[in-house]
């Protein structure tokens, strides 16, 4: 296993604990809220559709990784671009949802649901954004002839791993927050 992949696995380990704790806080406060949860305001279908873009981007980033490994650089660049596009679409969906909630009075300060919902989805969105920035850097590197170096190719695989992680975290959050899955 190359050093980049090992490093990202460790990053995933530490961030997984971070998200677990935010999710636990969400679950704890939901369990003591005695049924006063305004999940009715959440649009599961709309968010579900936007989520599909995020889930699909795991496939696209995998393609980017494979193409980079085989030095098919133009294709890798293409798949990177699609990955970023899908990521941006997902974040746009998040923004639309947040805007809707806030306009209808469900702010972060209104109640415990607001507190935990916005913190959890906010930090997930932040991690998506960070991923997008890194993908952007890789995209630029692919266009400027830097993908022939082994370290750079390894980074694509490592970043892809991070991207899958961000995806899986969203699977968990979506299930618990939107689908009401109890643990």
């Amino acid at each position, binding site marked *: 296993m190359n*050093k980049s992949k*090992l*490093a990202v696995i*460790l*990053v995933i*380990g*530490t*961030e997984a*604990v*971070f998200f677990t*704790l*935010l999710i636990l*806080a969400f679950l*704890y*406060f939901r369990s*003591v*809220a005695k049924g006063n949860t305004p999940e009715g305001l959440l649009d599961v279908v709309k968010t579900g559709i936007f989520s599909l873009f995020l889930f699909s981007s795991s496939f696209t980033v995998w393609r980017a990784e494979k193409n980079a490994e085989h030095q098919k650089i133009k294709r890798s660049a293409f798949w990177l671009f699609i990955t970023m596009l899908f990521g941006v679409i997902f974040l746009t969906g998040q923004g639309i949802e947040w805007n809707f909630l806030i306009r209808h009075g469900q702010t*972060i*300060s209104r*109640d*415990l649901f*607001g*507190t*935990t919902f*916005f*913190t959890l989805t906010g*930090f997930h969105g932040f991690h998506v954004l960070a991923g997008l920035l890194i993908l952007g850097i890789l995209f630029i590197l692919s266009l400027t002839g830097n993908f022939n170096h082994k370290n750079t190719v390894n980074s694509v695989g490592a970043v892809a791993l991070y991207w899958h992680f961000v995806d899986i975290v969203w699977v968990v959050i979506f299930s618990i927050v939107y689908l009401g899955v109890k643990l």
Partner: protein
Amino acid sequence: MSNSVPTVRNIDTISMPGEYKGLLSWVTSVDHKQIGIMYLLITLFFFLVGGVEALFIRIQLARPENTFLSPDAYNQIFTMHGTTMIFLVVMPMLIGFANYFVPLMIGARDMAFPRLNALGLWLLFFGGLILYYSFIAGGAPAAGWFSYAPLSEKVYSTTTGMDYWALGLLGIGVGTVASAINLVVTIIKYRTKGMSLKRLPLFVWMVLVNGFVILFAMPPLNAALVMLLVDRLLNASFFTVTTGGSPILWQHYFWAFGHPEVYIMILPAWGIISEVIPVFSRKPIFGYEFVAGSSVAIGLLSFAVYAHHMFTVGLGHPFNTAFAFASMTIAVPTGIKVFNWIATMWGGRIRFTTSMMYAASFLILFTIGGLSGISFAVVPVDWQVTDTYYVVAHFHYVLFGGTLFAIFAGIYYWFPKMTGRLLSEKLGKLHFWLTFIGFNMTFFIQHILGLIGMPRRVYTYPNLPGWGSMNMISTIGAFILAISVLVFLWNLIVSFRSGKPAGDNPWEAWTLEWATSSPPPPHNFEKIPLVRSRRPLWDLKHPEDPDWKHES
């Protein structure tokens, strides 16, 4: 099979290699040795700041109902003293040592990610600046280093101090995790040929275990900090009772970080002791596998004991029982180490350099701290002494008498390697005795203060019998410590300028960092010796009885 002979640097040319000259080369450096030294210098600076804060505390407490500091000023100062010593001194100082010495000890040229290494350093520096900026931005944080909610919430801590505290710690925390990742990847992937994990120097083993503890202990803190910031800045309700939040949630998350944190602050120190004692006893470490294995056990167990900080929260007997059990269990691997270190000294030919004096007294002082720690695992005893000066005594024994003494041992041991010059033994012995006497005078009596009812974190106290005189003794001890620090600084300065040239291996030690010049060249090694055991240089020097004949 050829064993390589390390290059001997000419005494006349002992100085930092050309690349190391100039401030800009330091500030932009990605070399692990320069970064390591910068960690040590930055943490030394914060050590002095934290020390001055401690002196202020001790002056205020020297007499009952003293008026040297206002209550508000005192509360800010004790909060900053604790926060500084933990996040800006002890933890990063150990990371600094790891940065410098891990690549050398495993025969590598640098860390796995040199630029990430620099990032960690500068996040520490700027995180510290953000934290200290609070003093001139309306007031430093004043809710104690563990900032319990709801005291830390906006309604009770009205200045921006708490926000700077949280932001500063987040910055420092990210840097720490970056360093941990770097160290773990470096140790796993960059060991020289022949250096299996079973042949790692124990300092490197401890850093490896520590890296994992950091990776899993920092997230609870980061989660708690962001939740606090969201509460304070966006009026959310994580910890505010009046709107349904839970102060106890803060405590769970904080201590899930806070307890492993104290192991983060001791594991590398144990590593230093495991290097120093064998060299100055002229014997290999006794029970290598047990010292290494017990450290892994402690790393894992450290997450299972955290709620012993919450025995008085009222979470019920079953809850307390579980954590008492785990807390007592963790004492066993800790004791194993102490006995192995003593056994290493046993039958040796002990050379009492300053480094060894610090290491030997570590054994005694750390044991005292460990024993008072075990008394806290006895839940009803904790119910009496938690939150008193008995606790303050306990943690200063393990963190000062323990970690800091180990750090001093490490400095006297490794300064020659880093600078090419030996620290003065004469000044070193003076430093040692002043520290030993000052430390014990300051802190032993605090056990007693706790046992006669003095709570911690108080800006003053009533004139009850004995309280004033004991506090005065403690304050005098603190000033002796201050003098010891001055002696130490003097030693550093004088020896750096004109200390005796050290040569490659002044202590006749056996691990790879001694197989190169002092200081090492930028690429670390001209030639790396063959590694067939835990002590490659012993094997070189004693081909008739090499270690690999005795190791499993």
